[in-house]
């Protein structure tokens, strides 16, 4: 390998909306620079060119929902020096993981007239359930500045710098008055990773958890607060059943709420 060789970037898609990989094309000011530093070796949404692996950095969007995809992710891992998952689908199974709480066969018949034509797994699962993941970039969708930071960090051989605090902290940093305290609005800000810039509270609505559960969160306490603000049990279940419904923290809390636990702490 010569020192002047450009690092190879590959972008892969599984079950998803394409929005996280689109974030790369949405870097209008930086795209041509990124393309001059990296070799875009495999990125079906953007190019017909397909260069063979191995790849220095693979960005993986989407969750695993079919037997074929459960195989394909292993091939991609073998071809990739670093593998970074981008977005809530790849990190936690996405909104399509709502099937995990129900009977998938009933879902198939609700949508398709001939269920026998459909090949799908009972559960939508994150990439890390199948292969080793070097870094998980959060968001639904991811933030493009964070994406550029991750790409840069891997080029420089260092750990990406992304915030480890919650949306709550971001609100304080930007001076947004707390919507839960001042208006009684339900908000997932205390338990959700920062990254969006605390967008929703600045638009007069509560956070609905796009960036997924922060590490070591107290979801039970938040659920009790929600109950004390008049949020019904079914709405408390749904609050944790969004784009990161199958993440450990949110799954356990939604199931606890479904069983009616924990409300007496309010």
């Amino acid at each position, binding site marked *: 390998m010569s020192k002047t060789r450009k690092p190879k970037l590959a972008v892969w898609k599984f079950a998803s909306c*394409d929005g996280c990989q689109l974030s790369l094309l949405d870097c209008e000011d930086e795209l041509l620079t990124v393309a001059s530093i990296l070799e*875009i070796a495999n990125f079906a*949404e953007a190019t017909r*060119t397909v260069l063979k692996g191995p790849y220095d950095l693979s960005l993986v969007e989407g969750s695993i929902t079919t037997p074929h995809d459960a195989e394909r992710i292993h091939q991609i891992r073998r071809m990739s020096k670093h593998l970074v998952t981008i977005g809530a689908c790849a990190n936690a199974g996405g909104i399509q993981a709502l099937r995990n709480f129900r009977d998938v066969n009933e*879902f198939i018949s609700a*949508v398709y007239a*001939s269920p026998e*034509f459909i090949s799908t797994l009972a559960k939508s699962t994150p990439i890390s359930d199948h292969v080793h993941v070097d870094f998980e970039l959060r968001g639904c*969708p991811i933030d493009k500045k964070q994406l550029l930071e991750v790409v840069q960090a891997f080029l420089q051989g260092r750990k990406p710098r992304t915030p480890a605090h919650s949306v709550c902290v971001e609100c304080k940093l930007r001076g947004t008055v707390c919507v839960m305290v001042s208006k009684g609005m339900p908000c997932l800000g205390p338990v959700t990773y920062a990254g969006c810039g605390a967008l929703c509270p600045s638009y007069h609505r509560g956070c609905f958890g796009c960036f997924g559960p922060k590490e070591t969160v107290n979801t039970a306490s938040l659920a009790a607060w929600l109950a004390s603000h008049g949020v019904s049990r079914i709405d408390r279940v749904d609050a944790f059943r969004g784009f990161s419904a199958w993440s450990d923290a949110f799954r356990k809390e939604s199931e606890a709420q479904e069983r009616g636990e924990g409300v007496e702490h309010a």
Partner: protein
Amino acid sequence: MRNKTIKVGYLARVEGEGGLYIRTKGGKVADVKLNIFEPPRFFEAFLRGRFMHEVPDITARICGICPVAYQMSSVHALEDALGVKVTGQLRELRRLLYCGEWIESHVLHAFFLHAPDFLGYPDAIQLSKDHPKIVESALRMKKAGNEIVRVVGGREIHPINVRVGGFYRLPKRAELAGLRETLLAVRDEARAAVLFTGTLPFPELEIDYHFVALRHESEYPFCEGRLVSNRGLDIPIREYNDHFVEIHVEHSNALHSEMRDGGAYFVGPLARYHLNHELLPASCREAAAAAGLGPTCRNPFRSITVRCVETLYAIEEAIRIIDQYQAPDAPFVEASPCAGIGHGCSEAPRGILYHRYAIDEDGRVREAKIVPPTSQNQKTIEEDLRAFVEKHPHLNDEQLTWQCEQAVRNYDPCISCATHFLRLHREEES
């Protein structure tokens, strides 16, 4: 008997996973299939039981390229069920938001997914090495579109500001003023893009399509109007199901749509343009004419120019809206939950997007039905491929494969909405 198989691998520069199968016999196409492998995600199933205010945030996740379309069709359908009408400046702001999505989506497709085909490049990055000005201009237009979505919607992908009844927060005057400057700066570039795409080499293909689009009495359509066609269809949106039917075929995870009386139809820029041509401002009609387009365009490859005409329109319409804007009293109209059934249809960049919801007295979804534009175009795409292959028997396998891919890309198919993986099998029997 001679059998030939050509494999393309992934269909590049589309959004999603699809495959292509073409078998010819004696110069005639015996079979054409656009296979759709994109894994099903079951939105219509898991929307059941969700509260109405969650719906636009959830349906946005069907597509990262056109989330505004999903949000607009769903809020209009829910408002129809609730008996709420959003008018005046809130309606104008919704049109402004939609302008932003048309600009970013159309420019992405025209210059990053479609134009490289005509000029013989694998992608826009390679194109930019020889033609930097074209790509840099496209990036500025795309950024302007995204800027509208960010200012009005909160962020470019999966906006957070769309609400049943209107918006969560109104844009600030200073934000709109900044937007106006950005749009003025790219207006001439959009006109130049119309003229430039008119000079591209277009493969020959003219098809007598059944065009279907929304038509509004006084404006080029976004969210309102009647569903009309060039063959006499003229119905209110709520009668959609009486005239269109979804069919589940084995080779596709996206349901195919047909007219109930049989037959494929065409949705998207060419259909909108044909059915609403005189509603475009004179400046847009003049630019189209200068690029060689009449009031009707039946060559699907020329859709790139029609997308640029619509981009110019969206920029001018956005400037008009900002110039007349006066902040309304409240960011939204109150909508109390009540039982009902509602229909909504809006013009996504790729064509009509129909939603129907039944909700209960608590405002929870009982049933959801969503028909994306790419499902509606699948059958027409197959028919185009059939016509194209028969008309161009002289092309070698490599040329034919590339041009068949290009014929699919004419539709800017959003396979995530409806479908990612194109494999061309060309079997020849002689």
